[in-house]
């Protein structure tokens, strides 16, 4: 993925270049805030999560390995982690709240590929992935919610993620 212009920005963050962090914010700030807003259902908590996530990006930039990760996934994983911390032990926005992709949002190739793959995933599989990843349900909570044994939920998540990967990889072929 050497063609990703954002890789150099992460490298410059590792060297202490604040302008590079600003450029990453300009590239991913709206995606980060959208994800945190969707997960927390609350603008204030979303803002705190994004602020903490960018501090993590700044601190952890030196450990980023472009051979193993894409910048977008790496950045959003940090936002996800912080927003999940905010969601755990707090009221949930509720399944499916505002999950619909905005048609007008700036859509890079990656965003478009992700939306296409998710749209082609079985609705039940998409739902269980979103309940876990976006709504912050643990497997134990999902088992209660879905009325299934934890082991069944674990396999359901595994299958859904594998099928999503198949759709994403297939899109690149």
């Amino acid at each position, binding site marked *: 993925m050497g063609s990703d212009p954002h890789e150099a920005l992460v490298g410059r963050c590792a060297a202490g270049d*604040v302008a590079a962090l600003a450029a990453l914010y300009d590239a991913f700030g709206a995606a*980060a805030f959208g994800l945190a807003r969707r997960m927390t259902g609350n603008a204030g908590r979303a803002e705190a999560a*994004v602020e903490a996530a960018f501090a993590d990006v*700044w601190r952890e*930039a030196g450990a980023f390995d472009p051979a193993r990760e894409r910048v977008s996934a790496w950045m959003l994983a940090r936002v996800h982690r912080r927003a999940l911390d905010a969601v755990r032990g707090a009221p949930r926005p509720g399944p499916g709240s505002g999950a619909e992709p905005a048609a007008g949002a700036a859509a890079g190739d990656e965003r478009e590929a*992700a939306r296409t793959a998710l749209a082609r995933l079985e609705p039940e599989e998409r739902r269980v992935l979103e309940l876990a990843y976006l709504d912050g349900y643990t497997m134990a909570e999902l088992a209660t919610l879905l009325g299934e044994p934890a082991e069944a939920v674990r396999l359901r998540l595994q299958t859904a993620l594998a099928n999503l990967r198949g759709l994403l990889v297939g899109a690149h072929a």
Partner: protein
Amino acid sequence: VSGGELPLGTAALLSAHALGALEPDEAEEAERLIASSEACRAAFEEALETAAALALATAETEPPPGLRERILEAARRLPPGVDGR
């Protein structure tokens, strides 16, 4: 995600961890596996990459004004990465 040679239970644990769906004790177990096995680390990274699609597909939302400057101001006060420079 497919886990290759990994037992299905292990692959499922790593997938659930990538989705952030594990209880703390299970998450610790997953972290131990990732730290100790290259195959587990690779499977986990693959699962993370796939899970990122759920983040990428979420609608972008304009962040509140002032957030950008607060982030940059914090960075100016904070030395960069542990081993940076």
